[in-house]
């Protein structure tokens, strides 16, 4: 049977409210391509940061290059602020093995030494292969074996979590 998935749109204000308490003058936000960037684009304007949103594609830091090769169409990482000494909120859509977050932290340190990094995810589906946890999580979601939890964005900009085939 298919479990009922949380409404992504309803999770956004809840996450924003939790983050608000955490934001300091040294805070800045970075979204991970592609789904994490969508979530970050929605959260960023609600939180009054002084810097624009940063966007990151971790294609060049993945740990499966030797096996899978380079993924098609990597995007340019754009971090329009100094990372050094900042409190960074790293945003992704779905937290699963933790490998994307590991790669993102490696890439971040090539930009500078942040004071802290907190992980913000819309959904945590479990299945961690690395010791990584989210400090801010919209919802925990159970995903049946052989299915994958994905964030989709409609033409209207509306976000929705969906299950699709594939592990």
């Amino acid at each position: 049977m298919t479990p009922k998935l949380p409404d992504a749109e309803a999770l956004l204000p809840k996450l924003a409210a939790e983050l608000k308490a955490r934001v300091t003058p040294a805070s800045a936000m970075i979204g991970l391509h592609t789904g994490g960037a969508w979530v970050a684009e929605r959260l960023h304007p609600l939180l009054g940061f002084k810097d624009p949103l940063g966007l990151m594609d971790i294609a060049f830091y993945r740990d499966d290059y030797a096996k899978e090769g380079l993924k098609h169409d990597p995007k340019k990482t754009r971090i329009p602020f100094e990372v050094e000494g900042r409190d960074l909120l790293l945003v992704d859509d779905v937290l699963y093995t933790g490998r994307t977050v590991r790669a993102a932290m490696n890439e971040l340190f090539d930009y500078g030494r942040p004071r802290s990094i907190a992980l913000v995810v819309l959904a945590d589906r479990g299945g961690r292969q690395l010791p990584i946890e989210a400090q801010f999580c919209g919802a925990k979601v159970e995903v049946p074996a052989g299915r994958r939890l994905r964030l989709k964005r409609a033409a209207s900009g509306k976000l929705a979590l969906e299950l699709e085939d594939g592990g």
Partner: protein
Amino acid sequence: MAANPQLNANGELQHLLSIEGLPRDILLQILDTAEPFAGVTEREVKKVPLMRGKSVFNLFFEASTRTRTTFEIAAKRLSADVINLNVAVSSQSKGESLLDTVANLSAMQADVFVVRHASSGAPYLIARHVKPHEHVINAGDGRHAHPTQGLLDLYTIRHYKKDFGRLTVAVVGDVLHSRVARSLIHGLTTLGVPEVRVIGPQTLMPAGVEALGVRVFHDMRAGLKDCDVVVMLRLQNERMNGPLLPSAQEFFKNYGLTAEKLALAKADAIVMHPGPMNRGVEIDSPVADGPHSVILPQVTFGIAVRMAVMSIVAGN
């Protein structure tokens, strides 16, 4: 049907030997991948861990410091180990065959061979004999091809002009001896540039050049009219006083790019040159250093393009 020697069984780029024969989607994949690498080269830490543990052998059977250096920088920025071999002055002079040289290097656990050779086709021969996990990148073979130069030219044109679909591009000078020109012309036509022109004296035009889909001009002023992009080719020193040309001065008068001739192109035209330049032979200094010139950005983009090519082939 003979398989495309550059692609693997899945249709992915296994070796980069020539722009000729590369499908449009692979050309675009290389240009699209080069863009984020250009971002890496602007950072303080200009290095990504992608090719950590891989070995890139720069195999130069013909000297070319500049091309070798850009491949070396690209490989280092991908965290690969780079081994530079100037084979022209080592084993080959002791009589070792090309394939024996490669077999020896392969035994040293190579992943990528970057090959420059005076004979057309040498990189193809090597690509046919390497192991499945080894990759060959052509860094210039005889008069045949110089695909990474062609790709960086395409990247530069897209960077400044965005869309290939409405451009007029002129390639000027010694088209006959230029491997850069051939690679570039193939790329431009594959990516849908509606008008590619070649400009030069009859003696420096390859026979049947029209078959590449270009318009031929012997009058530079007519050829430059309304161009968006002007690509100047290097006139090789050894040609200047050869039988094909009266003199360098004469060549400059007819085919050297001056501000006065460039004024015939569009007001926002860009001027490119693969380097090294002969100032006062094919290009006048005020143009080379002027506001239309993108010659130095080409060099910077070249590193990102070579990073893209290496990381794509080594991952396939």
